């Protein structure tokens, strides 16, 4: 046993390594990125021959992990919450095929949208797919639960969802490790049709899934984490989960015996633990980070009693992440603030790094598109989304991975001309390629600018699957050679780059401009390591 100082993300990664992980699959996304990064840099994972390459997107990641599970070995996938939307097809159906080797799907939610487009709650996906969901509230619990999650996955033959939120993912604490388990041996499923979801088979397997979801409610490896602590003051009972539990304890540590507290840490939870606290307490407060998932299930659609308080009745704000002050107010405790922020303090939003190639590309784009007026540029998810802000004000959309290409096609269909998409290299190989194929097939009058910095920049510079392959990919998809242009976004090339962009904007067919210059952050790191 060792004691390590680990982020929540890293605790999950270390636990997986100690629990006999054979393959780790992921696409970078805040706040989940550090799970794969930790495994990639771990000497233990190299010594244990753990597979640990980034995947092109979350869908390919989960399917690859399912293949590893098919072959009898333990696999883990990690993604941010919106990544689970991309992986949803594989995720939902993997519940019906079931698993062979244990499979954990980590989804890191980002309430308050620190680095995200929405604050969806992954626990809905657990219920949706009928798979168990673990939700640790601290780093040690995250570590310990990974072992149980693998066991539950193999015992019930289902994937297990593992939900963390930003504050746990990125909070560091000391973690005690367990003895290292050996990896599983290669073994194909006993039933050769287990993974064949032909309707006749899928119908049978779906019934099995539904019944195993019910039996999970009695599973000790899940229920042992759902902890009830009695209290003498039955005026209020508190149901909580995840990081909200920590904020609650912070507020009630001096009177720990006062209120009954039920901590839900794994789903599905049995009815009796909920019924017990509701029957014995006059009022119930539900504290959960994210959506009111527990609250809705406890209330049910018919409940309009005033007895239950939480995000739905407004005792706790409906959106945004929690903090100790919000929890204090919800319990009725006073909140003390320090001094106010002086009025001279200005906002400091994120911005392009000095010398960033995206900036030079947008300067040229702004000039080339100027005569067309506003509203012609669709964009995507990455550092370059910052061009929506001053001083660039260049882009008019950022929706989901790859949507720049397809929205540009739709707008061109509607008659917008020119219709331009700006997408990063990694986002392009994640979900932009299929859209480009649509454009080529119907010869849409669109220009796709791939702002290629040879890395996945926003999440800290992970390997991009696109590096060195973009031209061949575009040619292979069918972009004609004379409308496949490669430029270097440097100030000295500005005039020429504007000219090339204008030429392609005027072309009434598919054109691709690859604006290629290495991310200055990864370039600096590379130069340093080469010294």
């Amino acid at each position, binding site marked *: 046993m060792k004691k390590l100082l680990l*982020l929540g993300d890293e605790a999950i990664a270390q636990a997986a390594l100690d629990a006999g992980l054979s393959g780790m699959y992921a696409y970078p996304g805040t706040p989940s990125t*550090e799970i794969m990064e930790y495994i990639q840099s771990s000497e233990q994972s190299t010594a244990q021959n753990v597979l640990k390459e980034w995947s092109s997107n979350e869908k390919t990641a989960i399917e690859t992990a399912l293949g590893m599970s098919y072959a009898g070995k333990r696999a883990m996938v990690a993604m941010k919450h919106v990544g689970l939307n991309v992986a949803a097809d594989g995720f939902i159906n993997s519940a019906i095929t079931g698993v062979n080797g244990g499979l954990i799907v980590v989804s890191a939610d980002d309430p308050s949208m620190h680095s995200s487009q929405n604050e969806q709650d992954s626990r809905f996906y657990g219920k949706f797919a009928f798979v168990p969901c673990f939700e640790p509230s601290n780093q040690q619990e995250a570590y310990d639960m990974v072992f149980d999650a693998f066991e539950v996955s193999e015992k019930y033959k289902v994937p297990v969802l593992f939900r963390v939120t930003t504050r*746990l993912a990125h*909070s560091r604490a000391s973690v005690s490790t367990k003895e290292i388990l050996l990896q599983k041996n290669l073994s194909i499923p006993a039933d050769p049709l287990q993974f064949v979801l032909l309707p006749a088979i899928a119908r049978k397997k779906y019934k099995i899934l539904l019944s195993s979801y019910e039996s999970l409610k009695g599973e000790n490896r899940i229920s042992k984490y759902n902890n009830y602590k009695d209290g003498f003051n039955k005026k209020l009972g508190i149901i909580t989960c995840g990081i909200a539990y920590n904020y609650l304890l912070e507020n009630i540590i001096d009177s720990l015996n006062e209120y009954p507290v039920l901590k839900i840490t794994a789903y599905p939870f049995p009815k009796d633990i909920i019924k017990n606290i509701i029957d014995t307490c006059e009022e119930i407060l539900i504290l959960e980070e994210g959506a009111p998932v527990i609250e809705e299930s406890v209330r049910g659609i018919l409940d309009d009693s005033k007895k239950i308080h939480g995000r739905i009745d407004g005792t706790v704000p409906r959106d945004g992440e929690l903090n100790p*002050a919000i929890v204090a107010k919800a319990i009725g405790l006073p909140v003390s603030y320090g001094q106010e922020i002086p009025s001279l303090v200005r906002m400091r939003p994120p911005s392009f790094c000095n010398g960033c190639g995206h900036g030079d590309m947008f300067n040229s784009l702004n000039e080339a598109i100027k005569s067309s007026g506003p509203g012609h540029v669709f964009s995507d998810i990455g550092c370059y989304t910052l061009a929506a802000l001053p001083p660039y004000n260049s882009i008019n959309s950022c929706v989901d991975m790859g949507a720049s290409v397809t929205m540009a096609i739709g707008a061109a269909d509607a008659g917008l001309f020119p219709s331009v998409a700006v997408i990063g290299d990694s986002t392009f190989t994640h979900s932009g390629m299929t859209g480009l194929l649509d454009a080529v097939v119907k010869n849409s009058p669109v220009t796709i600018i791939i702002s290629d910095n040879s890395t996945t920049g*926003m999440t800290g510079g992970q390997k991009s699957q696109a590096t060195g392959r973009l031209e061949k990919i575009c040619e292979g998809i069918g972009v004609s050679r004379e409308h496949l242009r490669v430029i270097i976004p440097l100030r000295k090339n500005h005039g020429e780059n504007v000219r090339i962009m204008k030429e392609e904007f005027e072309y009434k067919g598919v054109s691709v401009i690859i604006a290629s210059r290495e991310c200055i952050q990864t370039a600096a790191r590379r130069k340093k390591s080469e010294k």
Partner: protein
Amino acid sequence: MKSDIILSGVGGQGILSIAAAIGLAALSNDLYLKQSEVHGMSQRGGDVQSHLRISDEPVLSDLIPYGKADLIISVEPMESLRYLPWLSEKGWLVTNSNPFINIPDYPPLDDILTEIKQIKNHIIIDADGIAKASGSARSGNIVILGAASPFIDMPFGNLENAVRKLFARKGDLIVEANLKALVAGRESSMALKI
């Protein structure tokens, strides 16, 4: 013993190195700790902060409640003011005097310093200048750590060891330069404290 610390600055200024040094020191002192960090989008030149909580009893919340921070350590003067709602009445604010200007409407530095001086317990030091004078221009963040060290309830030797450990793989020269920066920061702060 309990020390709730907010570290602040601009993405890329090295506040996580300060946090890592205090964290290592706390662990070697057998203390409990939780440290909440900001990763992702804000790291691109935006404001960043880290909540660091050290205690001889288990730490509960990953975030410091408002009004409960014992110390704000800032590598940038305007950023030090952004976290005043967290500072307790008896708390100290230790900040670098050198601004990091990457926004068009950055307020006049004198106004910022005037605002900081209105806080009862404050230390303003020229961390970049002190770092340069001690022969390691890039160690401004470690100078600030040194300047904050009198307000962290831990033996200074633990912090020195942590800095040694943190920079060990970069070689003896870098270790020595950072230790010098740490001591120089501490001394300049002690001189102001009295």
